[in-house]
């Protein structure tokens, strides 16, 4: 029986092995990217409606190390407040109350490695793998009641990057990433059930998170379809600093325990510094 613990141990060993292999003299950089993000999310566990929202602040941090092996660590964070209708007032027990929009918090953490397909510096193509934790904490508001839900994946992904335009100071890369296999955890069919309630028994956020994650299962492409498509432009401002722009499109489809169709657009301005 494959459980979350064995998946984490396997991924940790894999990362350790790969990072040890990649220890050579290298160029390191750090970048911060901010910009608007748009989602359209239809999750039949919670609602038959498509929840759309544009969030002005979408933050992404990236540390990158380049030599023969390209390595990166990425962290991104966004919140959304989709609503069917403008929040309205209603009355409960003679008092006026307000219906709030739903509140989604999205966090993604990734580590990846890749190599040029051909001699470094000469090849336009790069192929690699990444381990990515993707968490969507969902707070659905229904007037006086609110219900917590979640979608989380811990995926072993493959990615391909191609340099589309290359100049002395600027560069445009196209990138696609898809999961090979993922640990997928989602809320139960009708938001909560007894195992869900049992997972909250500790009343500790961290324990509850891992309990929810542990209730997931291994999902292959037939159970979880996901793709990240991106264009990343970078312009060197000098020897150390760079300015860039990212466009990214993410698609997710899962059909158990109920359909989830998810699109996300990110457009970010990126500031980078050579370390």
């Amino acid at each position, binding site marked *: 029986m494959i459980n979350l613990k064995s998946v984490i141990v396997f991924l940790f060993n894999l990362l350790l092995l790969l990072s040890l292999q990649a220890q050579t003299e290298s160029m390191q950089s750090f970048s911060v990217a901010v910009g608007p993000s*748009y*989602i*359209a999310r*239809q999750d*039949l566990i919670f*609602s*038959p*409606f*498509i929840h*759309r929202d544009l969030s002005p602040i979408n933050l992404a941090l990236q540390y990158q190390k380049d030599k023969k092996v390209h390595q990166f660590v990425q962290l991104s964070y966004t919140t959304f407040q989709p609503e*069917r*209708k403008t929040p*309205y*007032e*209603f*009355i*409960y027990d*003679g008092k006026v109350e307000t*219906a709030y929009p739903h509140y989604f918090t999205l966090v993604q953490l990734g580590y990846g490695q890749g190599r040029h397909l051909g001699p470094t510096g000469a090849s336009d193509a790069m192929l690699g793998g990444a381990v990515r934790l993707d968490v969507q904490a969902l707070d*659905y508001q*229904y*007037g*006086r*009641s*609110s*219900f917590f839900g979640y979608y989380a994946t811990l995926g072993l992904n493959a990615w391909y990057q191609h340099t*589309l*335009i290359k100049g002395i100071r600027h560069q*445009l890369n*196209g990138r696609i990433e898809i999961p090979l296999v993922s640990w997928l955890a989602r809320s*139960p*069919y*009708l*938001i*909560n*059930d*007894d*195992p869900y*309630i*049992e997972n*909250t*028994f*500790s*009343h500790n956020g961290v324990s509850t998170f891992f309990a929810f994650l542990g209730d997931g299962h291994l999902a292959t492409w037939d159970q979880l379809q996901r793709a990240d*498509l991106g*264009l990343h432009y970078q312009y060197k401002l000098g020897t150390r600093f760079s300015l860039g722009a990212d*466009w990214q*499109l993410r*698609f997710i489809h899962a059909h158990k*325990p109920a*359909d989830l*169709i998810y*699109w*996300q*657009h990110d457009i970010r301005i990126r500031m980078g510094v050579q370390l």
Partner: protein
Amino acid sequence: MQKALSLLMIAGAMMFLPSCSLFFIEEPADHPEALFDHLWTTFDRDYAVFEERGVNWQQQYDHFRPLVKANTSEDELFDIFSAMLLPLDDGHVTLTAPGKEVYISNTIRREKTDDALFSPEVIRTYLEPGFVAGAEDEFVFGKIRNENIGYISFAHVRENFFNLHTFLNTYPDVKGYIIDLRHNDGGDFTYCYSEMGRLVDQDRFVFRSKTKNGPGYNDFTPWFEWSVRPASPYVHKPIVVLIDRYTISAGERAAMAFDVLPNVLLMGEITNGAHGTMIGRELANGWFFSLVTQKVELSDGLSYEGVGIAPDLEVTNTLEEILAGTDRVMERAITELR
């Protein structure tokens, strides 16, 4: 340059993908007939306790669907929905719309039947000065005046149950405890089950439940058993647990848990009878509704959904007594523990 332009056009075209409904499952429409169908179908598919509530849902459709027309107004639709939900008489079934009082299917809660028979102000007169109260009286604990009896009340079941430990530690030498769950409006029963371990000397089975996990009438998860488990140090004293018709949801599950202890006497009135887990849903016009997706059975194999948990000793306040500052239920509990 041409390459960059092509890429820009492709990216631009892809930006419209998420806003295009083509890639999604069709949403319910926003007109009176579609709203009715959405509400009725959701209950038909997901509501777990029609049988316990004695309601033939198809009959409700046959009666109310013809009343809805394309030009039915929002006010009329709200009234039709409310009338359709009425026979469920379920404290977990609600309907929320802009500018309106939330409709509660349960008559007691909606009409506030005998709501005034419970008075926190009167209860305070029974406590010695120096009692402790949480925000909005989410818990109140202290010692009964001129008696060696501890008293604690819980207005709901959430983090306020963490105060049970403090209460037991503050009054270790009393003759007994009164735990007041009257007007407890529920929350998350796990806070009660995780915190009452000191009152239990062995694993004690409380109830089992199963939740809808598919659209069919009989699509349920397997039964799941809930017990309370011991924690140290064990406290063994006579306990009177007070309940009333407003004790609902997790408040009732708390009452169920206390009821399995041999040293507990349930006193007061029968509880509301709405204790399966509930979920929220939204309609295309922005209204909200809630429904129950779970069946619950006690150790006798029976469901008390729509029935309520009966007290071992039935005692009811009268309005005259409460207005005169007397809480008969409280006084009877004190007498039992004296």
